[in-house]
């Protein structure tokens, strides 16, 4: 512990150095609307697109190849690239790098009051977290609408709403938007908002990189969405070559969108990993780090190290389309398998990028609502890191059916089955924490329990799929589709909902309506299972993914699944209504610690001040000492008034407020 208990209540403020940050405000960060914000980003993004497209046409339209096929990939790519550049310039993400070129430091960020701060490039991790909440919900909503379109088409095997091309465009866009959303849905909103609070830090290590990650994430969303205006892409979210090379300009949106969001993911992971390693409060040894932070650290490591490979894969694809290289063209010395390898080298760790934060959330919630310490804390932490490490060695199981050397199959079957061991540890930690617990079935707890139920189904079918014979049999069928919806939606999205219901009172100071929340939970849980469980059967009966026609005898099951999916969609509308109702229409002030959690994030003032803690807390014990009479409070706040417990406080006293 480096900050002793004897802390003066007043301190001399640091004198600003001559070369330090300049004070005062420039027009770029002036409060109000006459500065850089979302509006300027949209305008410059649009102008950037026009310029890039014009420039691309100017550069390349004279080439015979382009003149003959009437498709100018250079113009399409430059249009999107300059759109992203204009977007970042407009929001102010490039102000600081430009100032650095002149050896200057940034001006102090002026406090921006009111709502307008949420439309700006800001250094406050809490504002970035809230921006991410809105951003990922926008992703989720868009992807969800596309899912409804898919299920509508599948209501009848022969009467069609869309033509086959449109259908596959919708499927592809749905998959891509959802997968990109899912990689950031916890790390972005909850990771950015909560990690500094949970580790007792006043700030992120690199707040500008954090803000950059959000705004480039939104730019990536626009790029991927733009594919619809370019005629979409026919490859599904996996973008397999050689179909990738035969696709139209929408494919460039897909490839470039992946690369752009990839940059955002790298930045987000980088910043959070560095923050956790360096900014933990005094006394927060690795065995005292909250489990959610462990999960975010494991995820951030994966984001930082696996995503560059996705970026490279996207870069190669863009080069294939724009300057006609042949990375993925077998006939010209390339290989379509190269894409599969690069894509899945990122893609499988991505599965755990999506799974681990979900387990981190429920590991945080379950002890609160069972009033029990987290069972086998160290096993859970080791499990998180074990999964993260092993996830780099399993990607070839996605290629079992794609021409992998048969001798390699047992090896990757083994590694895939191995990864179920640390995953099982994490799962059993949850079960151990529930065992003999006095459960309070509040909404966050219900969503947490639902995760364990759903993930059990998703996880066990995953073990089946790792087995080569089963994999070969059900490859490309609805069985696989159902499996990953059970793990990603049944795991991650349920955990995200648990997290939102649990932490929104802290983030917004308002309680979510319980009655509406219960309706939301039960409809979502029931109709999720009614939507996706039949798909296991549909898959086993042979219906392939991404095909809009199917055998007549499967119509009953498909209709059942579709109608359930509409109800599932309606459950999300209930959630959005609850959000609007509880936050805007009929806001109810949340108590300081409504769930009686011992977590550090609940011990600081509400609303959380810009600097998070009046005094940097000193961590004095393990994080989950619920129901331990006489246990000391988790942290010593030095009498600064931010914490609920004093240095000699007890658990009981620390949860009273």
């Amino acid at each position, binding site marked *: 512990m*480096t*900050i002793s208990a004897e*802390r*003066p*209540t007043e*301190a001399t*403020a*640091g004198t*600003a*150095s*001559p*070369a*330090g940050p300049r004070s005062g405000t420039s027009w770029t960060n002036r409060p109000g609307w006459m500065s850089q914000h979302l509006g300027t980003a949209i305008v410059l993004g649009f102008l950037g697109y026009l310029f890039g497209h014009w420039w691309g046409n100017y550069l390349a339209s004279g080439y015979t190849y382009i003149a003959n096929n009437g498709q100018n990939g250079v113009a399409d790519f430059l249009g999107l690239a300059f759109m992203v550049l204009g977007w970042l310039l407009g929001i102010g993400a490039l102000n600081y*790098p430009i100032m*650095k*070129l*002149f*050896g*200057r*430091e940034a001006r102090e960020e002026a406090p921006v009051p009111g709502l307008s701060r949420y439309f700006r490039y800001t250094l406050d991790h809490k504002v970035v977290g809230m921006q991410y909440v809105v951003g990922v919900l926008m992703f989720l909503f868009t992807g969800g609408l596309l899912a409804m379109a898919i299920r509508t088409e599948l209501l009848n095997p022969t009467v069609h709403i869309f033509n086959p091309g449109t259908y596959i465009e919708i499927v592809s866009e749905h998959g891509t938007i959802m997968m990109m959303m899912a990689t950031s849905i916890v790390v972005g909103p909850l990771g950015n908002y909560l990690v500094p609070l949970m580790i007792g830090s*006043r*700030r992120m*290590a*690199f707040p500008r*990189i954090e803000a950059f990650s959000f705004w480039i994430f939104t730019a990536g969303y626009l790029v991927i969405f733009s594919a619809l205006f370019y005629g979409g892409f026919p490859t599904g979210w996996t973008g397999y070559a050689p179909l990738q090379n035969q696709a139209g300009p929408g494919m460039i949106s897909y490839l470039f969108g992946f690369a752009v969001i990839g940059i955002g993911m*790298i930045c987000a992971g*980088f910043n959070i*990993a*560095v923050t956790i390693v*360096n*900014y933990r409060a*005094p006394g927060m040894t690795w065995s005292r780090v909250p489990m959610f932070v462990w999960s975010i650290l494991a995820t951030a490591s994966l984001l*930082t190290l*696996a995503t*560059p*490979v996705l970026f*490279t*894969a996207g*870069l*190669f694809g863009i*080069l294939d389309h724009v*300057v*006609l*290289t*042949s*990375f993925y*063209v*077998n006939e*010209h*010395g*390339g*290989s379509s398998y*190269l894409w599969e*390898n*690069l894509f899945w*080298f990122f893609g499988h760790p991505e599965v755990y990028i999506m799974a681990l934060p979900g387990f981190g959330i429920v590991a945080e919630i379950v002890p609160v609502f069972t009033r029990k310490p987290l069972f086998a804390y160290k096993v859970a932490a080791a499990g998180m890191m074990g999964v993260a490490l092993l996830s780099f060695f399993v990607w070839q199981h996605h290629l079992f059916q794609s021409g992998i050397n048969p001798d390699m199959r047992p090896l990757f079957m083994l590694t895939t089955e191995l990864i179920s061991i640390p995953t099982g540890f994490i799962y059993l930690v949850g079960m151990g924490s529930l065992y003999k617990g006095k459960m309070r079935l509040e909404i966050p707890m219900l969503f947490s329990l639902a995760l364990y139920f759903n993930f059990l189904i998703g996880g066990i079918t995953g073990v089946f799929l790792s087995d080569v014979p089963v994999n070969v049999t059900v490859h490309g069928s609805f069985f696989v589709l159902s499996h990953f919806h059970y793990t990603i939606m049944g795991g991650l999205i349920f955990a995200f909902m648990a997290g939102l219901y649990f932490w929104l009172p802290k983030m917004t100071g308002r309680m979510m309506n319980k009655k509406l929340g219960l309706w939301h939970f039960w409809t979502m849980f029931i109709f999720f299972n009614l939507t996706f469980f039949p798909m296991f059967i549909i898959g086993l009966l042979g219906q392939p993914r991404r095909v809009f026609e199917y055998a007549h005898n499967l119509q009953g099951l498909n209709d059942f699944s579709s109608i359930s999916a509409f109800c599932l969609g309606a459950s999300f509308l209930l959630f959005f209504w609850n959000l609007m109702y509880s936050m805007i229409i009929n806001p109810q002030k949340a108590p300081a610690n409504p769930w009686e959690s011992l977590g550090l994030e609940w011990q600081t003032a509400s609303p959380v*001040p810009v*600097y998070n803690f*009046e005094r*940097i807390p000193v961590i004095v014990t393990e994080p989950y000492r619920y129901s331990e009479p006489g246990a000391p409070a988790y942290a010593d706040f030095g009498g600064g008034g931010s914490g609920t417990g004093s240095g000699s406080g007890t658990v009981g006293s620390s949860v009273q407020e």
Partner: protein
Amino acid sequence: MTDTYKDSLAPNETPEEREYEFRAHIGSLWTGGRLAIGISTFLYASEAFAYFYLRTSNNSHLWRLPGQLAPLYYGWTVLICLLLMSGLAIYGQSRLRKGFTNDFQVTGWTGVAAGLIALFFQCWELVKLPFYPGSSGYSSTFMGFVVMNIMTIVFATFWMETTAARALRMRKELGGTTPELSSAHTARSFRANVSSMTYYMGFVAIVSVMFFLMFYVA
């Protein structure tokens, strides 16, 4: 690695807290620099994977057309410039550690010039290629490498330029021309940033040599 340390974030911050946060900041620069190397390693590793994968596959016997080679003149020029930039960064840091700020500035700006020359030749090489980008696996991976290298050179040169420019503005705080080290927070933060930058430059040098051997020699 470009965020700099702000002395005081919260009102009434105690000296102990300020020191604690400062140490966290220095640690962040250290960790961030190494993590940046990790990110770049995976970027280049995927490029190397593509190179060896396509080379081994040799689909349609088109890994490489007979006599196909990227222009050696440009390759050497870029390599020498990058090695010079890296060497200057390392030398400049050693001088900075001894308090010779002016030496650091000279090496810094010279390194930036070397980086810009490398960038120019790396870009110019693209318009002087003696083969079509899609004529073979080799030509494709070479294009991928060049684009990736351009991004790395831009990043490395930017980082070096910002430290050199910052050193100019901070020359009094850094100790001027006298061989002594300032213990001011901003100066220590600056030196930590330079240290991370130097490590990254070392990485750039290693990668440059490896990929030069792969694309221009092997």
